[in-house]
């Protein structure tokens, strides 16, 4: 897996303060990486900064949501005949050093590796309502897909492209796509595994998830995904 380039996709919306740091962190790993930033219609300098840091930028002309950005990434992965792809957030809350760990886990014939912030006990810098939401949805998802899921919304993942070819046509969600991708991949009998990752507190910018919006969108996604 190391001879071929590893495709890394970073969906980003208005992440000018953190995107360079994320890309530079990945470059420091000295791996054969092809880094793509899917700029989901940012109104700030996210695209320019990502390009300057050495990433290839694919730009949505308007903001349509992280789920749409990730589907653009999946389409590009298929077009590029990538074997595996890695996705991580552009807000700097994912540690690039964990990349090696989740790639290693993907070698065991696993179709989807999820980086979980909750497998090991560690301090979580997120509001209580989000923690409760993640726990609730992870439990519901565990029942649905019959695989233990502790972090249903984590987007630090490795996907096997072969499985994405079968799953992509079924994906619809523009928000909170994490739940949907797990359910649809499980329907395709994908082997899913979680590995522990480090949760880094956000040091710049601010979360775009307010309590009401977060609750409403998660409920909506759950209803649409499970019906």
């Amino acid at each position: 897996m190391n001879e071929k380039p590893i495709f890394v996709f970073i969906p980003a919306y208005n992440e000018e303060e953190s995107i360079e740091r994320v890309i530079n962190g990945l470059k420091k790993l000295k791996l054969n990486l092809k880094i793509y930033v899917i700029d989901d219609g940012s109104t700030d300098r996210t695209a320019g900064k990502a390009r300057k840091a050495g990433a290839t930028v694919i730009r949505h002309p308007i903001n349509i949501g992280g789920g749409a950005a990730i589907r653009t990434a999946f389409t590009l992965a298929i077009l590029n005949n990538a074997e595996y792809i890695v996705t991580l957030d552009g807000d700097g809350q994912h540690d690039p050093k964990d990349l090696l760990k989740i790639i290693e886990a993907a070698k065991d014939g696993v179709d989807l590796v999820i980086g979980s912030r909750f497998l090991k006990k560690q301090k979580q810098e997120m509001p209580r309502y989000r923690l409760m939401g993640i726990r609730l949805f992870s439990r519901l998802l565990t029942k649905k897909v019959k695989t233990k899921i502790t972090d249903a919304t984590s987007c630090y993942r490795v996907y096997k492209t072969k499985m994405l070819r079968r799953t992509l046509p079924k994906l619809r969600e523009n928000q909170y796509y994490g739940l949907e991708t797990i359910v649809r991949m499980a329907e395709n009998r994908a082997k899913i595994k979680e590995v522990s990752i480090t949760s880094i507190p956000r040091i710049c910018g601010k979360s775009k998830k307010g309590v009401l919006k977060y609750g409403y969108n998660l409920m909506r996604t759950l209803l649409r995904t499970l019906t």
Partner: protein
Amino acid sequence: MIKGIQVLGILVSIYLMAKTVVQYKKRNYSPKRTAFWLSLWVVMAILFAFPSLTLLALPILTTQDAMLTVVVVGLMVTFILIYQTYQQVTSLERKLTELVQNIAIDNHLKKAMSDPEKEDE
């Protein structure tokens, strides 16, 4: 004896069922989503055919007939409008998303073909 309002309710339910099947045939709905909406419309049709069932569950509806009719008709119209809007928003959202994604990928591929070295930077 079956009342006019019941016939109207059943007809509206059948109309909504037909609309749901059309959406399924157009592949806008998954089988599960189709089943969800169809079961909702079937329940609605059953309640209109046998309104006494609502008396068992919702005794509060046993108000004056005229008032009840207005409320029921109003609700039916609202159901239709909400459902139509839901269909249109879902369909438009999908089309818009696909359009935006296609533009982004086409632009990327054009750039990659015109200047492959720069694209790899």
